[in-house]
């Protein structure tokens, strides 16, 4: 039984072999973008707000509120990145309930890509918010001796981000697969429920940790 979607080759575009991870990522992207485009095509600015717009606004307000609390700055500079991160991971995990679907987050390549994106986003936002010199100075705070520790910290937290999400989602998929083969009725359904909760929690954890990392990079030393 194959549980790594990277190894499931679905089709090829020329020399590019499209596996399940990439394909389902496209599906998730298509769902998110099309749903967003449809819902936001007729946004109401009046007193009466449509239900789906209300859902989106609630989500966006939650993301911006959390980001503002963590960073202490104008959240709208970070919301597109952090919001996309949270929404993508959430969608990937929640869509696991769809039959034949393989969550891209159960692929280490995907979680590593997301973690690397956060890894690069941290200095990017740090430099754009504080300037290059101030950002570089932060690696030498409170003492130049701390530089290697900062570097190790950056690398280790990136790895931990990737492994944490991958481990949780892969183990969940593995457990469901095992239960399906052992007890095909009822128990897999319960595990699917647990899987939904785990998926939501993991999305929240990834988003929170990413916002904390970015928040720490944009904050001036001593803040």
């Amino acid at each position, binding site marked *: 039984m194959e549980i790594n979607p990277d190894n499931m080759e679905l089709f090829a575009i020329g020399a590019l072999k499209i596996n399940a991870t990439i394909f389902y990522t496209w599906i998730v992207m298509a769902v998110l973008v099309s749903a967003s485009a449809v819902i936001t095509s007729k946004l109401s600015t009046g007193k009466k707000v449509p239900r789906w717009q209300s859902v989106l606004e609630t989500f*966006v307000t939650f993301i911006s509120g959390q980001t503002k609390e963590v960073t202490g700055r104008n959240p709208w500079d970070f919301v597109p990145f952090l*919001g996309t991160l949270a929404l993508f991971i959430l969608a990937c995990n929640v869509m696991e309930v769809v039959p034949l679907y393989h969550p891209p987050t159960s*692929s280490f390549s995907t979680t590593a890509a997301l973690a690397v994106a956060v890894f690069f986003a941290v200095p990017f936002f740090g430099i754009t918010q504080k300037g290059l010199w101030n950002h570089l100075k932060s690696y030498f705070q409170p003492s130049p001796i701390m530089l290697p520790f900062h570097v190790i910290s950056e690398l280790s937290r990136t790895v931990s981000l990737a492994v944490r999400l991958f481990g949780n989602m892969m183990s969940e998929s593995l457990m469901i697969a095992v239960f399906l083969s052992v007890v095909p009725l009822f128990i897999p359904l319960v595990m699917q429920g647990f899987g939904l909760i785990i998926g939501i929690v993991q999305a929240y954890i990834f988003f929170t940790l990413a916002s904390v990392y970015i928040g720490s990079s944009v904050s001036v030393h001593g803040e």
Partner: protein
Amino acid sequence: MEFDLFTFIAQLINFAILVFLLNKFLFGRVKAAMDEREKKIAAGIEAAQKAGAEAEESARRAAEELANLESRRQEMLDAAKKEARDEALRIKEASRKEDEEQKKKWHLAFAAEQDDYFRKLKVHSGRFAWMVSEKMLRELSGAQIGEKAAEIFARKVEELGEKEASGFAAAANRSQKPLVILSSFPVDSGQKNRIALLMKEKVGCKNGVEFRQDADMEFGIEASAEGYRISWGGKDYTEAMQDEVLGVFKNDKGQGGYDE
């Protein structure tokens, strides 16, 4: 934990594309809508605050206006009270004057009625006295009272002084009309001729004499011209009787009766 570099790079690219698309179709639009709504709400709050301020201003103006109106009402009330007091005094004064006028009218009317009463009393009592006297005289001496009265009148004419006679004649002749001799009784022709002759020769009346019987006259006979008068009758008696009657209604101090 397998790692596929192609998938890793593809997912990085996918994620970058997703960030771009969601920023365009989701976060950007939602933020714009929320900002727009926030602006509307802020505008609404501002308008409400403005309306509230205007309402407070209106309430303040209304309170001022109310205070002014209350002041004006009090002034008008005071003026009305003063006017009412003045009007009451004026009406009272007018009423008092009207009462006095009415009282005067009543007094005049009463005096006129009193005069009329006494005139009638005199006439009736005079006639009564005349009838009684005529009857007594006829029964006692067989003489007519009218003849005696005319005789007494003729004797008074005969006994007139020269000065009085000339004054009377001058007054009687100025009118260019016959001298009228009034009597309460019919005068017989003999007496008429005698009196007419006396008036012409003794007194000097040139326009002749005319005898008339006056039903309203007290008993007696008289000739008058421009304030001059020759008469005989019961006028003195009836005036004494009038005084006597008036005296009946007065108290010991002489007050009351018809004089009040």
